[in-house]
């Protein structure tokens, strides 16, 4: 082709290329802008969360369910708050001291903290809350509150709590979830259950004030302009939308009608694959550890009372399959009763039981349970909770896996109330499979499962009736230890023993997922399931100058 034509073509291509380049630049700029934003937080915006149901109340002193905490953590404060590794940071308490023997905790409260109605928050509120509200009714922190001997208000901003004996995870309980401070002047002398401030106009000290609650529809909170942290919260308001159906909730997130879903059973796990593909959102595992495993009735069934049988069962279980298929890969395989989700206490060197059907069968033969003509050795009942996502599919898998070892499993599905009575109170079961929260500290979640004093017949206590004086001693040591390394040492040893004795075969730790649109930053993870709404900010808000807000 001749030169002129060629030149024309090159020119056209260059122009096209340049235009494309410019266009690309424009779009990339937008993409980049929507990407990581450096610099200060911005002020403004509304965070809309999707929840599965209305909270039963907004009184966090009485109710400690996750749904309640999701909302009340924005309205109220605790003395401290926890980070991803369960380390405490100041909230209402500006500083604190723990005596060397671990028996006296002294808290200095922040100055000039006001309730939403203008009254000042003082140590009297703290004392009242611990004695009459959260300290009396809270289930998760029961052990901690029971260890309190006395609370003294040495001055309007000083609280001294003395314990009967040292309890190392004491601080961890004092969050907005399990230790929320409520206004004495509104609750003293009233019937706490019927107090109108429970749902009509809660008055807290937190970053957001209650505006309205339309049951079945939404709860609206607006910025507390007099919040004790300067310049915070960044958001104008937080709205909690109630969307009971998981599919609808997932769709609402996709279409942007809601821009966050935090755990507490609100995350639509069945739709996680679709949600993972979204480009403008991030899914995080907030790391609230749990122990999903197979538990044995050690005193109630002579077959599983034998250790060899339990070991054989451990070798027959393919945990990876259970997690991938039964839990839809929303979980990790674990091999210790203290999950890796509590990294400082987790002992990776415990005895392990890899999948080995041959070994399993061999052990059962040796234990004196030969296979009959149908290939079965004995029958065991496997109980689980009806409708529990963590149990329904996995038990179907377990039945098949144990069948391969010659164990005939009879599944028994119980509705929750019945299960609590039958399994935990009457010990009428052979095997039980299900999730148990471990919380962020083994003293809170694990001790109640394996200490002799926890065999009380109450729900979620030591229902395997495992009793080992050495383990009791180690848990006691850990709780009263004043140095962290002593605590760790005790827990390491406990795990070693428990994984040899196998009252529980740990299978998985379920991920607790939070999802939030990328437009919202600052959602820190913490071992609590709610996010701290005084940290979150919206990228399209008004810029904030350096000195105008309090850094964490």
């Amino acid at each position, binding site marked *: 082709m001749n030169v002129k034509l060629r030149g024309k073509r090159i020119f056209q291509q260059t122009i096209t290329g340049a235009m494309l380049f410019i266009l690309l630049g424009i779009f990339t700029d937008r993409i980049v802008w929507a990407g990581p934003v450096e610099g200060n937080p911005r002020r403004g915006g509304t965070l*809309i969360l999707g929840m599965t149901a*209305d909270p*039963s*109340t907004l009184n966090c002193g*009485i109710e*400690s*369910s*996750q749904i309640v905490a999701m909302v009340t953590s924005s309205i109220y404060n605790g003395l401290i708050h926890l980070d991803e590794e369960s380390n405490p940071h100041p909230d209402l308490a500006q500083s604190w001291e723990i005596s060397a023997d671990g028996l006296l905790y002294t808290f200095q409260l922040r100055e000039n903290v006001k309730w939403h109605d203008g009254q000042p928050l003082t140590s009297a509120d703290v004392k009242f809350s611990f004695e009459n509200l959260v300290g*009396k*009714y*809270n*289930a*998760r922190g*029961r052990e901690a509150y029971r260890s309190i001997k006395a609370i003294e208000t040495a001055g309007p901003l000083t609280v001294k709590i003395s314990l009967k004996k040292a309890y190392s995870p004491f601080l961890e309980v004092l969050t907005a979830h399990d230790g929320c401070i409520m206004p004495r002047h509104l609750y003293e002398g009233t019937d*706490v*259950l*019927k107090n109108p401030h*429970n*749902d009509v106009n809660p008055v807290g000290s937190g970053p957001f004030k209650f505006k309205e609650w339309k*049951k*079945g529809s939404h709860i609206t909170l607006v910025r507390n302009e007099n919040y004790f942290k300067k310049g915070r919260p960044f958001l104008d308001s937080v709205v909690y*939308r109630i*969307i*009971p*159906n998981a*599919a*609808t909730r997932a*769709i*609402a997130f996709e*279409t942007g*009608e*809601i821009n966050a879903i935090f755990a507490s059973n609100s995350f639509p796990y069945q739709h996680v694959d679709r949600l993972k593909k979204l480009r403008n959102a991030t899914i995080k595992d907030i790391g609230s550890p749990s122990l999903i495993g197979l538990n044995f009735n050690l005193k109630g069934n002579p077959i599983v009372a034998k250790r060899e049988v339990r070991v054989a069962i451990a070798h027959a279980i393919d945990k990876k399959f259970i997690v991938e298929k039964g839990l839809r890969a929303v979980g990790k395989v674990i091999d210790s009763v203290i999950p890796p989700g509590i990294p400082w206490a987790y002992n990776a060197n415990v005895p392990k039981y890899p999948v080995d059907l041959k070994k399993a069968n061999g052990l059962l033969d040796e234990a004196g349970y030969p296979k009959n003509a149908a290939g079965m050795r004995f029958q065991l009942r496997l109980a689980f909770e*009806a*409708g529990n996502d963590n149990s329904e599919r996995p038990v179907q898998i377990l039945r098949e896996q144990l069948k391969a070892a010659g164990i005939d499993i009879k599944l028994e599905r119980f*509705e*929750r*109330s*019945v*299960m*609590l*009575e*039958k399994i935990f109170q009457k010990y009428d079961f052979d095997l039980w499979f299900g*999730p*148990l*929260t471990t919380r962020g500290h083994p003293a809170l979640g694990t001790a*109640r499962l394996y200490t002799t004093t926890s065999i*009380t017949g*109450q*729900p*979620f*206590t030591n229902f395997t009736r495992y009793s080992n004086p050495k383990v009791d001693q180690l848990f006691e040591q850990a709780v009263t230890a004043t140095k962290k390394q002593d605590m760790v040492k005790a827990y390491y040893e406990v795990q070693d023993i428990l994984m040899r004795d196998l009252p529980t075969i740990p299978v998985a730790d379920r991920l607790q997922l939070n999802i939030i649109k990328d437009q919202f930053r600052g959602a820190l993870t913490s071992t609590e399931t709610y996010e701290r709404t005084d940290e979150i900010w919206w990228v399209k808000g008004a810029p904030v100058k350096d000195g105008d807000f309090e850094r964490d």
Partner: protein
Amino acid sequence: MLVFNLLLHNSSTPVLQSLRDDQAQRSPRDFLGSLLENTSPVSPTNFILRRLFHAVPLLVCVIVFNFTLIHLAPGDPIQALVGEFPAPEAYVAEMRRAFGLDQPLYVQLLLYLKNVLTGDLGFSFYYRQPVASVILDRVPATLQLMVPALIFSAIVGVLLGILAARKPYSISDNAISAFSLFGYCVPAFWLGQMLMVIFSIELGWLPSQGIKTVGADLDGWSSFFDRITHLLLPFAALAIRHLAVNARMMRSSMLEVAFEDFVMVARAKGLAEKDVTARHMVPNALMPVVTIIGVDVSFLFTGSVLVETVFGWPGIGRLMYESIVKRDYPVLMGNFLITTALVVAVNLIVDLVYLWLDPRVKYKK
């Protein structure tokens, strides 16, 4: 073709006959179950009053029965409220006091009955609201689904039945009969799933879940339209079955009535076929069908639980299931009560319609 015909039709269904006997027992004159030969017509007001009078012991029995059943069942509802940690004694005591659970059973029952009379259905364990408001929040959603379904399936079903009976074994008859056969053999919730698959997932014409689009604050016509699109599929799933039943019954009934003496007399009198149908055949044929509609209402509630589950519809059917699973006794009892009352009310209306239709009563006037 003969086989095909035989496949679709039947001279009369077994239920039809039992219904005739049934209706004879339930007719207003037969109120003590004895067969009275000489009857005087009963005025509607008397009739209503008598039925209402009967409804009261019914509702009381329902309450007592449910109460006993629920409280005999194993498990403690208070503990079920708490999460995975044993509830502190103070908490349990407080809850029990607040819900009156610390009293002996018969006292609780009497208190409940007394409260029901004043419209107080108790306090929900789970929602911490008065039961009446929990239920009333959800009743409209269920009614929005059921009332159109009931009316539509009644009217269209009857019309289809008349149409089919006009020319037995014709193409239109075959079509209608095939449809109704399909309609009442298919489980309503599966029908719902299939409709959802076709219209929502594959074609994308209609939304699949919920009562309205979340977050979109629509009003006026857009809101109405939004609601209708959400209503369509669950409505169809519920209505088709009852439509099919009604059509089938009506057809059979019409065919039977066609050979009754009074029809022949009417024809002999020289009345046009249209008039014979409308004034003589239909009212008589309608009678057992009307009974069916009444009986069906309680089955509509059955369907509602399942269909509401499939479509995520926030109605009392789903509430019933949830309150059973959550052991929310007050809501359970209240729900049962209200549902039964609704069924009684609809049956009353049905009986009134029957009264109106009964030619024996008519001619006496």
